[in-house]
């Protein structure tokens, strides 16, 4: 196999071997249905309860406020659609931002078609939601504010405490998509006044296809999956026991070494950002310079296109991602990059690299050298670069 330098941890992460080990017995040994009465199923029930407790503790919640789902997308859909339904007598207005994940945005667009009104808040040039706009957007019929904890593309961490306070002051429910932030930054739902929180296992070195939704007790929320009595009748369906066990283990491990991991990632991230900005001309950093996820670096290189960059990086075994129109399938550049004010052609040259603690300085050095060569090569075949050099009299 060719070498692999994995720098796409915002897309998904490697499942920790300890997590896999913890899951294995729940396939072949303890395979009972947790809802059954016999003793054989007792370990399954207990395993779910233990995972729930680990997770509840990690955000300062109670165990009966944690509901297992298949991941971030389901949690977002559930939180938004079910509150919209349960509170429609109070009003049909929802506030979110322009930089949410599609799991939130497309859900809101769907609700608009069902007669709800949605305000999509602007963000500033760093991707931070504007609090004064939030206050202005609130109306008597506003039932929900849904703002992500941290952005998956540019890594910007939102002012969640302030948003939570504003929501609380006005008696409006506050949901946050914490898929990128949970188990990477400390979160306490009471201190931050969060009423609902979405998280996903595969972004924190846990398994894919499992996540949870935190729902503060007292929040009226409808069942999303109608079926059996699992998850206090809120979410029917036989539990994904191995997945839930894996999620619990991943959370336990991630919470234990969070600070250490973040410090290591931050150091590497800042080294990467520092070198790229110093050594590649016409490059910029997207997202907040300080308030950003410890593993996220997002650049825009002028005059070139992201997919071409990704393919060339791939031939060196480097995995990254881009918000370029050409990679989106929809021919539109990333809505996040447009929302922070990047013109189309600059959004085109975006490159997101998201690290993990497994990455080394040597890898980053190699990646920077490759980026320098690739950017130059692509610029040499770019008509935009040619025009720019002509205009600026450099040739």
């Amino acid at each position: 196999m060719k070498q692999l330098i994995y720098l796409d941890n915002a897309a998904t992460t490697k499942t920790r071997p300890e997590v896999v080990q913890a899951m294995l017995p729940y396939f072949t040994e303890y395979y009972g249905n947790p809802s059954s009465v016999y003793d054989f199923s007792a370990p399954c029930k207990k395993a779910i309860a233990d995972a729930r407790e680990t997770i509840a503790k990690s955000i300062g919640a109670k165990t009966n406020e944690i509901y297992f789902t298949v991941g971030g997308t389901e949690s977002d859909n559930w939180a938004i659609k079910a509150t919209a339904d349960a509170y429609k007598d109070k009003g049909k207005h929802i506030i979110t931002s322009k930089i949410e994940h599609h799991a939130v945005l497309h859900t809101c667009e769907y609700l608009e078609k069902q007669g709800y009104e949605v305000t999509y808040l602007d963000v500033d040039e760093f991707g931070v939601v504007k609090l004064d706009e939030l206050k202005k957007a609130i109306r008597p019929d506003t039932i929900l504010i849904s703002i992500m904890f941290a952005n998956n593309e540019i890594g910007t961490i939102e002012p969640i405490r302030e948003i939570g306070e504003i929501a609380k002051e006005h008696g409006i429910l506050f949901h946050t998509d914490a898929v990128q932030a949970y188990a990477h930054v400390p979160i306490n739902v009471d201190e931050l006044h969060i009423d609902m929180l979405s998280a996903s296992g595969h972004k924190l070195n846990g398994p894919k296809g499992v996540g949870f939704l935190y729902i503060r007790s007292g929040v009226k929320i409808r069942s999303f999956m109608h079926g059996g009595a699992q998850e206090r009748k809120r979410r029917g369906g036989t539990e994904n026991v191995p997945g839930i066990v894996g999620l619990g283990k991943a959370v336990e491990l991630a919470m234990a070494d969070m600070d250490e991991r973040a410090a290591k990632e931050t150091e590497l991230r800042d080294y990467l950002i520092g070198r790229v900005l110093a050594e590649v001309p016409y490059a910029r950093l997207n997202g907040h310079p300080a308030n950003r996820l410890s593993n996220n670096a997002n650049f825009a290189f002028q005059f070139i296109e992201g997919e071409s960059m990704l393919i060339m990086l791939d031939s060196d075994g480097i995995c990254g991602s881009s918000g370029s129109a050409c990679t989106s399938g929809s021919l539109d550049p990333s809505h996040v990059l447009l929302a922070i004010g990047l013109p189309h052609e600059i959004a085109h040259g975006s490159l997101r690299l998201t690290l993990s603690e497994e990455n080394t300085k040597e890898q980053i050095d190699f990646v920077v050298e490759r980026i320098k060569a690739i950017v130059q090569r692509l610029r040499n075949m770019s008509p935009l670069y040619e025009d720019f050099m002509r205009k600026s009299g450099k040739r």
Partner: protein
Amino acid sequence: MYTEKVMDHFEHPRNVGEIENPSGMGTVGNAKCGDIMRIYLDIDENQIIRDVKFKTFGCGAAVATSSMATTMVKGKSVQEAMEVTNKAVMEALDGLPPVKVHCSLLAEEAIHAALWDYAQKNGIEIKGLQKPKTDISEGEEEEEY
């Protein structure tokens, strides 16, 4: 995601560059996805394309189709070059993913634009050649999902 031929032309693009004082030059863009392609032609007095160069700001498929298209028009008469359609280029590359078909249109349009420029400058008529659009996304319909 791409065929071997596409990867070959992407990794080793033929005819990248510029031509000083070209006989014809055309730049077209797809404002929708933001890509831009430029073709330079050097055409001799017998209307044979002696040399061709390109520059592309776009994805892997855009680079590969530009490269392949330049190899296909080189040495041909301007009239023969009209037969290098996006379909012919795609076939020569063993196909493109459906979302990338529009990139191959860019190559065809850029060649047409360069031929148009040449025809205009020299008062020549090339059969089947129409005034090219500068933005090929014009008139494309948005799909509902």
